[in-house]
């Protein structure tokens, strides 16, 4: 849990309850049945998608096809947490030159459908994208929209299948199997950071067809952060790597940045 908590240190009751919570936590980690599968998933979800109040990162996305041909895209990703669930994302493209200034805006609404907008500078065109399948490729890469914004823990049933001092392995089965292309996926979660280290997806015939991995984790502003991630399409043989740099949290992003107006004129100071 990296969510910052504010409390009044002068409030004795708060201090007591903190001490109590700490004690309880210590007690619970001592036992093997410390955390339920749902709790682990929740914490993993928080760790990987909700770190800080807001954040930014420069992303270098390298899409390598089966024959080894590479396409590189560079964009800046801004994120703002609205509450425990709702988030807003802003992706601003810098390279290659032909997509310079292209921008995406996504409002993740949690229980209801996401809102999405798109800005194509060369066509002087702002377009809203109707809610649709979130499991479609993010700008042609092997990452899905859902990988970028997070899959709701409520969409799957989770079972803890393996637990060690260093990691948890969870098996996740979709509640509505016909709505997704996988029948289940296994996620390995680091027991210290709660960051998902590896997710392996199996199709409806039981074949492994997709893998998403965190290849490198760094602690930035005290927050364990994935700085190199990789998605592999095991059927087509393509691999996408996202390298994150200039990661910063809690930079005080203005909520107005995440509006249509800023698609046309990006917030220069944070890009």
């Amino acid at each position, binding site marked *: 849990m990296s969510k910052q908590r504010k409390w009044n240190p002068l409030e004795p009751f708060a201090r007591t309850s903190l001490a109590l919570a700490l004690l309880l936590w210590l007690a619970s980690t001592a036992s093997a049945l410390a955390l339920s599968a749902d709790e682990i998933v929740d914490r993993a979800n928080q760790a990987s998608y909700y770190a800080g109040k807001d954040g930014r990162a420069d992303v270098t996305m390298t*899409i390598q*096809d089966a*024959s080894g*041909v590479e*396409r590189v895209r560079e964009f800046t990703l801004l994120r703002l947490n609205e509450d425990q669930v709702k988030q807003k994302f802003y992706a601003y493209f810098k390279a*290659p*030159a*032909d*997509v*310079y*200034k*292209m921008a995406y805006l996504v409002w993740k609404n949690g229980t209801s459908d996401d809102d999405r907008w*798109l800005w*194509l*500078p*060369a*066509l002087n*065109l702002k*377009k*809203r*994208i*109707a809610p*649709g*399948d979130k499991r*479609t*490729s*993010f*700008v*042609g890469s092997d990452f899905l929209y859902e990988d970028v914004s997070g899959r709701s823990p409520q969409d799957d049933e989770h079972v803890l299948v393996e637990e060690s001092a260093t990691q948890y392995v969870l098996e996740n089965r979709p509640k*509505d*199997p*016909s*709505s997704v292309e996988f*029948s289940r996926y296994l996620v390995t979660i680091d027991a210290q950071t709660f960051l998902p280290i590896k997710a392996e997806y199996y199709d*409806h*015939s*039981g*074949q492994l067809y997709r893998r998403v991995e965190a290849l490198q984790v760094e602690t930035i502003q005290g927050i364990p952060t994935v700085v190199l991630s990789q998605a592999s*399409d095991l*059927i*087509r043989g*393509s691999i996408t790597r996202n390298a994150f740099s200039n990661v910063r949290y809690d930079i005080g992003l*203005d909520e*107005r940045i995440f509006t249509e*107006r*800023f698609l*046309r*004129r990006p*917030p*220069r*100071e944070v890009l």
Partner: protein
Amino acid sequence: MKLALTNASLKRPLLTLLVVAVATVAFLLQFPRVNFDNDPENMLSAQEPVRIFHHEIKEKYALYDFVIVGIVNEEDPAGIFNVATLQRIDTLTRQLLYLQQGSDGLPEIRLPASSGQPERVQPLNLTPASAWLRLLNRAFNHDPNRLFTEQGRSAIIAHEVISPSVVDNIKQAQLGSLKLEYLMEHPPQTPAQAREIRDDAMNNPLYRGTLVSEDEKAICLYLPISAKSYSYNVATLVRELTRDWPQSDRVLITGLPVAEDTFGVEMLIQMATSAPMAGVAIFLLLLLFFRSLSLILAPMVVAVVSVVCAMGLLIGLGYDVHIMSSMIAIFLMPIAVADSVHILSEFYDVYHRFNNKAQTVRYVVGHLFQPMLYTSLTTIAGFASLAFTPIPPVQVFGLHVAFGVAIAWLLTMTLIPAYIMLFVSQEKLAQHPIASQKPDETSLLMRVLGWLGQVCYTASGRILVLALLLLLVAGYGISRIAVNDNPVKWFTAQHEIRVADRILNQHFGGTYTAYLTLAEVRPDACNCEEKAQRIESEARARFGSLFPQYTETLIQRLHQLSDQQRSVQGCDVNQCFYLLLQQARELDDQAFDGWNRLADEINYLDSAGLTLDWLRSALQAVAAESPLEVAHLFAALQADAGLRGEALLEQALAQCEKQMGQTFSAFVLEMQAETTAPPFKRPEMLRYVEELQQYLQGVGQVGKTSSAVDALKKAAYELSYVAPPTDADAAEREHYAALNRSHFAVPATAAATAQVFVQLEGMKKKDSLFHLVTRDYREANLWVQLKSGDNRDMEEVVAAVQHYLEQHPAPQEIKARWAGLTYLNVVWQDKMVKGMISSLAGSFIVVLVMMVLLFRSLTWGVLAMLPLTFTIALIYGLIGLAGKDYDMPVAVLSSLTLGLSIDFAIHFLQRARELYRKTGNWKTSCEAMFHEPARAISRNALTVSIGFTPLLLAPLVPYKTVGFFLATIMAVSWLATLMILPALLTRLERYVFRLPGEEEEIQL
């Protein structure tokens, strides 16, 4: 010497029999290892450049061979777009997507649970109900449930299936938003929903004419399969899954892979039925001629053993049984029978002279050794010459038939004598009435032959003139021969594959696929100077008057960088642009600082209740730093004084943008995008492809072409679509419609093109764009659908494209190449025709040389060649006149003709010379010729012709062709031998016959 083999088997008949039996069993043991190959692609060697290229293209664009499933509904008023049919299509699609291998190894369909519905499992077993088909499947190692790769994956590449349920659709949705989903995301529940699916499909250039027919009566599913050899089973699976569909929804399955694979399966059935039936027919005919079972049993054994040996060798050597080699039995049988029939026939004729089996055999073999050796050698030469064609399956076929002929000869020399020694009883021979072996002068055949002999002598001139006339006609016919083939046409017109092919090609743009690939020729071209020139003039035009000094600074840097590139090896354009961009950013900081600050400030303002005055006060701080810019802005905004809130803010931002024009850095990036764009992101190249497609649409057999440009135009249209206001009148609506139509085009700049392409890259069906363009946009692939798979039609399209490309050079040099199964067929066909002609010419010369050696005379050698020359000319003339395509079976027939017709001529000329030696004059000899010798030749001809009539019943055209032409060849070469040769001999008596003393003995 020549009797060595025969003597050995006469001495040890049992041992001979045993050796033959052991050898036969040894060859027979190879049979279970049989592997069938019905892929016409293998007509080309695996190293063939066009084949390698074809596979590169398949790999590069992730293309697969398709099983095409057409669903046609001509009864419903809504055509195919009625609720029930679309629901069925959706169900079928899902069933095919969720095909998997059950725990018992059999296929099963496991539909995942969906809201309210539990998981459903449908076990399948495609084993046919008919016991006969099951037996055949077992015999030929064909598993009808083989639908999975060795790794257990479905043979259907699920993620590449093309069906309304799983192809992308971009459409307008509420509030001017854009919806990206599948064309039939959910099966329709109401006619209105069905109509919506229809409209979406019809409005997509990639789907109209490919996925849905323009008459709205048919939908095609394209099922990509991991290997062509699955296509027959996949077709069976589809038939099984649609068995309970109503009559009104017709399911038609076609596509080259299915045709080829189905052909292979039916070929096996033909091998198992036609060849034995032909054997039986020959047997019955021989029985009719010789009326002695014991006599004709031996030739049948010879035929069967030679076929077994030839096929056993082929399988043992690891060759696949291809369509050509499946006909080995049919080709080999008549040839194998002929020699032994000659021996036995003569044996019975002369037995009474010796009254001793061994002595009679020695006499007969001694007598017939040379003609038999030569007829066998010429046949071997004819078939072996096929080894020089460039087509591997034809080489294998030719060599193995040659091997079989050699075996047949060997058996005739050994097995027949052994057979006589063991199984023909002396008593029976003694009882055998000698008279019956003499020609029965009253039989129809003998009367016809007698008449023919007279005519040939008395009307020799007229016969020769007639022959010459026929040759002239044949020459004309040959000039009209059209080389053509089409695997679908290997089926008879009523076959379900032909029917499906016909109906689907009426409805759709065509079910035959070819790929036209366009690739840039010089991918590494740098053209630094050219680029610098363009950038310089652009920069002057845009910034020259506004920022003359900054513009010069930028241009200076530009040339400095460009010059550096010339001096270093290679060139890194992107590095150049990066450095130029640094310069541009510096300039921006100086030139646009004020405006940028101003625009940023406005950007963050709250638009609620904003007025001009409020804006003025909000910008006071900025005004202190950039007074000029702020003043400029408010001067411009005076015209829109009435604007409030968000509109005012937008207007203010727009004014800032306008004043700034573009920044230097944006300009540099734009120039980078435009000047370094790969060919298929360049608008001018894409428009060129568009024009090429328009041209192709007008070319004969092309029904439809699809390219990345179609996808691009559709996406650009939908992205830019502006809905008319709800209260708009007709004129306004038309204005909007026209505006929207103008966006159904290639965007104006490379950057715009690239940005639309990025949207297409992120569609729901991943990577579907990359079937049409490579990921680096340096190569493009046009999917050309043809309504006919005839090679001739494909050739026409190839020629038309070549012509177009020459007449209309592309804006940037490109190389166009073809791939696809339809095109591959053209290539091997062309090779086959040329190969056959040279192989025929080669074997013709070899046989001529043999004849000259045999007859020790050039004249006689040439004479021997005449009937077969006449036959080949006439047959091919007939093919040309009848408009029958010159295809593979027809091409191979030439070698058969060569091998069979020469036999008649050898026997005829040899006997003629013998008789002349005895009688001393041609008139008497000629008469005698038309008794026993002519009868033997006629019987042989009849055996072969009639023996192969069962082939006419086959449902496969190549078998019919072979059956028909074998009969015709026999008839023609029989007539040519019995008419042209005697007529010529009559005319040339003085020149060709020498006095008995002068003539050399033909036998050694």
